[in-house]
């Protein structure tokens, strides 16, 4: 196949990648996007295989076969909950591949390179290597194979600094003589070490961000390889992934309320305090929900029961509640309210407020009339209620409210609780609902939480 046609196919592949990424950013088109991107990849690989330079196919077919088996097996077997670490692992493979390609290029060329090519090859080697070990570390942290908490030791920053310096120095040597495979191997080893040391001081909770960042790095490595090989497909795709990855990293940081600088910085040795703090909150036991996630859950529900409590009254969130319910109702979601007899601070407290906000009486259900329906409900939205949804009343004979009928919210598929903190309610007792598997907490004043959810839904 002529190089021109191959290049045209590369252009097509790059276009498909771009469209694919665009489609991936909306739930409606994401699947199609992934599919288009696959086609692009297949086309690019096919075109490359038809390139005149490629003469021997045994190793290639063998390699592709082995890779496909391993990749497919891993992708099919992995549990849904382990997806982030799986992505990390795969990304590590990509990084390693880039580093290896650079290594091969170094190895196969005994005449030396122009400086630009040399630079890009070195960068490809370093970034690829760093991505490889960094991704492995992230995987290990998420799998719990090594401690999830940030690992720090005295002089960490100095050591990291020294390794960076050493890498630069060795690279300089490579510039002097690009045929000395020893210095090149040294650079590779140092970059592998850098990957380990950069990730080790970061807490497990930040790993998804790190994986995303490393993904961006591996894109960069690919694009460097592209420069070295004068291959536009690699340049485009690599920079596409690099740029989108760094951007996605930023978006993820924003969603976590941390700065990219903060993550990037802590990634290079300084023990960041907020990272430590994040590590200490028992993330496993209390699912703090992002507004967006809550919105997505609500948007995808078929049936919703709203359980208002004193917190709704205290936040004067009745109007915001009705607005959200109206919006969801208009979008085909069945919305009902479950009113516990003692919710609030006076008999009928919830009624008075909901009536003020014009919630139709038909949507209000007394506890006895709705308690059996929770089990068949997609989502329960608990707005500032606590005691009246405390399962201890049913399960814990030692509890002061044992025996009081409560709303069986925990039977629903998902429970979302809007509250400002984990503080207790009127009866002053803890509530294990908040740490149940199907419960998601959204902390904050109920009114503003509701408003945020609605604004997100409307986007």
């Amino acid at each position, binding site marked *: 196949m002529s190089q021109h046609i191959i290049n045209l196919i590369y252009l097509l592949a790059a276009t498909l990648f771009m469209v694919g990424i665009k489609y991936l950013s909306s739930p409606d088109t994401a699947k199609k996007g992934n599919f288009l991107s696959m086609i692009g990849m297949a086309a*690019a*690989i096919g075109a490359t295989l038809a390139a005149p330079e490629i003469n021997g196919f045994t190793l290639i077919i063998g*390699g592709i076969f082995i890779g496909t088996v391993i990749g497919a097996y891993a992708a099919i077997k992995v549990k849904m909950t382990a997806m982030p670490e799986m992505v990390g692992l795969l990304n590590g493979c990509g990084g390693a591949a880039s580093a*290896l390609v650079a290594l091969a290029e170094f190895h196969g060329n005994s005449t030396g390179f122009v400086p630009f090519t040399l630079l890009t090859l070195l960068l490809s080697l370093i970034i690829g290597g760093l991505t490889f070990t960094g991704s492995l570390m992230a995987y290990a942290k998420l799998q719990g194979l090594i401690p999830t908490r940030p690992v720090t030791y005295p002089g960490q920053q100095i050591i990291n600094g020294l390794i960076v310096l050493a890498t630069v120095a060795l690279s300089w040597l490579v510039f002097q003589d690009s045929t000395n495979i020893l210095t090149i191997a040294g650079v590779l080893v140092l970059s592998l070490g850098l990957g380990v040391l950069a990730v080790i001081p970061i807490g497990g909770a930040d790993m998804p961000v790190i994986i995303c960042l490393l993904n961006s790095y591996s894109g960069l490595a690919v694009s460097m390889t*592209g420069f070295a090989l004068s291959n536009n497909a690699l*340049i485009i795709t690599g920079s*596409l992934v690099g740029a989108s*990855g760094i951007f996605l990293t930023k978006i993820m940081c924003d*969603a976590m309320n941390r700065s990219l600088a903060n993550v990037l910085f802590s990634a290079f040795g300084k023990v960041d305090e907020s990272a430590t703090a994040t590590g200490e909150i028992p993330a496993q036991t209390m699912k703090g929900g992002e507004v967006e996630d809550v919105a997505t859950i609500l948007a995808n529900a078929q049936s919703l029961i709203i359980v208002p409590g004193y917190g709704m009254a205290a936040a004067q969130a009745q109007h915001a509640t009705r607005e959200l319910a109206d919006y969801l109702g208009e979008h085909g979601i069945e919305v009902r309210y479950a009113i516990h007899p003692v919710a609030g601070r006076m008999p009928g407290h919830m009624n008075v407020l909901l009536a003020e906000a014009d919630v139709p009486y038909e949507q209000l259900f007394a506890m006895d009339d709705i308690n059996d329906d929770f089990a068949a409900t997609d989502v329960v939205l608990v707005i500032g209620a606590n005691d009246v949804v405390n399962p201890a009343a049913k399960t814990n004979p030692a509890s002061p409210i044992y025996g009081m009928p409560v709303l069986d919210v925990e039977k629903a598929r998902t429970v979302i609780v809007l509250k400002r903190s984990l503080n207790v309610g009127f009866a002053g007792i803890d509530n294990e609902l908040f740490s149940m598997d199907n419960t998601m907490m959204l902390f904050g004043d109920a009114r503003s939480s509701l408003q945020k959810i609605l604004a997100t839904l409307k986007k």
Partner: protein
Amino acid sequence: MDTGTIIIGLTIFVLACFAGAELIAKVPPTLHTPLMSGSNAISGIAILGALLATGHPESFNSISVIGFLAVILATINVVGGYLVTHRMLQMFKK
């Protein structure tokens, strides 16, 4: 490699960076992980380099071994990446 090629490469690099950054600007949080995974699969395009490194020589030598390894790893990235993405997207209804 001449300077002209480098500059064209840079041009393409800059444009692609813009396109990449802008394409992603509006993604909702629930799609963060699939998107990360999908673009990770795309970055498996390094396989092209691996293929070129492996296919070059007729004889079996240390370069082709390195290339072979690279092909395996890159294929894992590509195949695994797309499948994982696909599985995640399966979970979205509607």
